[in-house]
């Protein structure tokens, strides 16, 4: 008696059926996990699209009186979120300026000294940092910058808090990327007499560029939607402010403010939609970069 006779036709059919059910169940569940995103997008689009006009991007947030009159007349609320957009650009930009060089240097160090005790400690700290609640980072920004440096709420304080938040993603992606690069590449450069620092800067880092950039962009998308740390640092502002030592608005802060003002509630949808699209866009571009800029070695 051999196996092929043991598995009868009927059993075989049963198995195939089970396989089919399993596969379809998987597809269905995968689809299900995508549903919330589409529902959210749909909801925001339906409720927010009316608000998305030119002035939405170029005007400051309306005050509550203007909004109340507009709502009473069943008109689109005037004004936009320009103060939030500018604030987000400045705060996130500055945070990136702080975190990217530190993160890349730190990640490179970890990749180059995989075994060292100090490297192990740094790696541990970076992992811990990843788990620090964002509100705590806001407190840190408050203690480090708001009080002693800018003498009041400021964009700079927000940037510092957010830079700490994006650091782990940059460090780890840099480390992981560089570890994958074959050592023979470093040998090739060293055998040409190239000094170590130039080997890192001109050969190793450019080779890992796609992985590093992906980490950077994911780090940016992670902090772009953060609200809690900014409440304790940047605070918010009703006007466009480009001075980093002054309080500044940001898109997620505006969403929070709109929520707290009954007359402005309608602005929540458009502002949220904008934020969500921004972050989706960042994530998609991270994917595109990871694919397009991938260095073949």
């Amino acid at each position, binding site marked *: 008696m051999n196996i092929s006779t043991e598995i009868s036709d009927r059993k075989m059919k049963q198995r195939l059926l089970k396989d089919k059910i399993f596969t379809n169940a998987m597809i269905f569940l995968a689809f299900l996990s995508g549903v919330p995103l589409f529902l959210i997008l749909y909801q925001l689009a339906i409720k927010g699209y009316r608000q998305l006009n030119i002035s939405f991007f170029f005007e400051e947030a309306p005050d509550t009186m203007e909004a109340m009159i507009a709502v009473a007349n069943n008109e689109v609320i005037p004004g936009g979120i320009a103060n939030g957009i500018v604030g987000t650009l400045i705060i996130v930009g500055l945070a990136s300026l702080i975190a990217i060089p530190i993160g890349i240097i730190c990640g490179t160090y970890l990749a180059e000294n995989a075994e060292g005790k100090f490297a192990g400690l740094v790696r541990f700290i970076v992992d811990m940092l990843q788990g620090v609640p964002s509100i705590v980072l806001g407190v840190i920004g408050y203690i480090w910058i708001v009080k002693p440096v800018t003498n009041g709420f400021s964009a700079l304080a927000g940037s510092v808090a957010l830079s700490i938040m994006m650091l782990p993603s940059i460090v780890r992606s840099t480390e992981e990327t560089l570890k994958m690069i074959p050592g023979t590449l470093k040998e090739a*450069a060293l055998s*040409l*007499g190239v000094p170590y620092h130039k080997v890192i800067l001109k050969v190793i880092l450019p080779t890992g560029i796609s992985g590093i950039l992906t980490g950077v962009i994911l780090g940016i998308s992670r902090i772009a939607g953060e609200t809690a740390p900014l409440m304790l640092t940047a605070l918010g502002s009703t006007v466009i402010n480009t001075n980093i030592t002054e309080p500044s608005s940001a898109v997620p802060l505006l969403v929070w403010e709109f929520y707290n003002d009954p007359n402005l509630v309608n602005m929540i949808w458009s502002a949220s939609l904008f934020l969500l699209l921004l972050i989706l866009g960042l994530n998609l571009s991270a994917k595109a970069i990871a694919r397009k800029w991938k260095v073949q070695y």
Partner: protein
Amino acid sequence: MESTILKQEQMPTEQKYKENVVIKNPIEKIESPVLKIDDLSVSYGGDKYAIQNVSAGIAKNKITAIMGPSGCGKSTLLRAINRMHELYPNTHNKGGVYLGDENIYELNPIQLRRKIGMVFQRPNPFPTMSIYDNVIAGFNLNGIKLKRSEKDEIVEKSLREVALWDEVKDALHNRGTFLSGGQQQRLCIARALAYTPDIILLDEPTSALDPIATSKIEDLLVKLKKDFTIVLVTHNMSQAARISDYSMFMYLGELVEYGKTKQMFTTPKDKRTEEYLTGKFG
């Protein structure tokens, strides 16, 4: 041959053969050598030496092959010649290596590696660079400024020397990593040649290549010895027999036998050389 890896137990102990070292001072065996390895011992740390008391002169414009079973110190010896072994943090060495009258351990690595280039087992072109930039990478990465015309000239000359020019002249600005393995390896040789070194070290340059690519590289090396001195580590005895003028046989970190390739393959002086060449071990 290549596939039989010597088991630890079968390996004769170092002691057993200590007395019958054939060559006492092989530097003198070579007339006016370009490179003199003088009683060189290299350790990767501690007092265990990966190669011990190696002395040898390297003949100018010849191919010298280094053979021996896995782990005998071939790569270590080769790397000690352009100080690539210093990549590992705890290395130290005794004795010296002289290029002309200069002790290479007193030169700075850029100077030294301009004079002694290296090619590795796996082709390793810089993946972010074009074929063109790969060839002149030694200049670019070291911040040596060249005129466009000089660069063009060096690139063409080097690629012609490795017989790659006709294959890639219309794709110079494509990435080097799109080439076949054999082409990549020739590109890496061109990269080493571009610096116009005196000596080129190659560590099993064909072991990752197919037979056709291998024979191309072998032809190339024979042609190149007109202008360069070549030192080649190889696992492949027939390759050593085909292309080398001189051969070294190393065993357990020791240079057991060194001489003209023909002579070594026909009448080896040491029993261990004979055993290795006849495939008894290694």
